[in-house]
């Protein structure tokens, strides 16, 4: 992440929240044509990069915006990843608030 990061994006929930807000504006277009693909959304430029895997989407994003901060989405799914193993839910949420 850039060393001069916008303080507005200093915690993961703020980054994810901003990413989800941008995704809402793209959802209809992407879900019609890119279902199941991964999309890395640049929080600052609002540009987005599509890939068949999380790595591909984020590699394209990093190549285009080396200092960018990205939120990863899987089109048509509530999360970019799914996990079935029980992980303790964060009682205090994040280290960085």
């Amino acid at each position, binding site marked *: *992440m850039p060393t001069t990061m916008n303080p507005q994006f200093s915690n993961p929930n703020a980054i*994810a929240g901003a990413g989800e807000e941008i995704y809402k504006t793209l959802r209809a277009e992407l879900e019609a044509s890119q279902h199941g693909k991964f999309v890395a959304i640049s929080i600052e430029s609002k540009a987005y990069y599509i890939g068949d895997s999380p790595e591909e989407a984020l590699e394209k994003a990093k190549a285009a915006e080396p200092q960018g901060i*990205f939120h*990863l989405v899987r089109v048509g799914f509530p999360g970019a990843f799914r996990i079935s193993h029980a992980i303790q839910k964060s009682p205090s949420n994040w280290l960085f608030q």
Partner: protein
Amino acid sequence: MPSKNPLLTGYFNNGGHPALKVRVYGVFPDLKQEFEVMIDTGFTGFLLMPIMSAFPLGLPLLGTGNYTLADNSTSAKLLAHGNVIIGDEDPVTGIVVLEPNECTVLLGMDFLRRAKRCLSVSVKGVALTDEDTVEHFLTAIATHVAASGTPKVITEESKD
């Protein structure tokens, strides 16, 4: 380039889940550390680890991504780039999910896909087999079956 080991052997951890020892690093291989990872086919990602364990490895941060838990709730996590090495194999690069709480390190389906490995679990042990080797093996079985006719399907009714 070293040849690919056709068979990597894992074991069962204290909880009885398939596990493996791997080394993880970010940009600098000198910072790599060894972890016991649980192989979790219910995790669609590459690697998940506690953020406190990730700090010394120098994994470059990429941003965030949501993951969905078994109860369908979602949670935002930091994502980073990381490399995973098993034994003497070449490193496999992927996206590491950083969990803020203490948790078991998980190796997911995206790792198996990227490493081209096939997971076999039985009561006798855990093996990660080279996908090409498995494919050759399955092709050989299919060829043998085709040459010897349709395999007989044994059912409860027909076995006597």
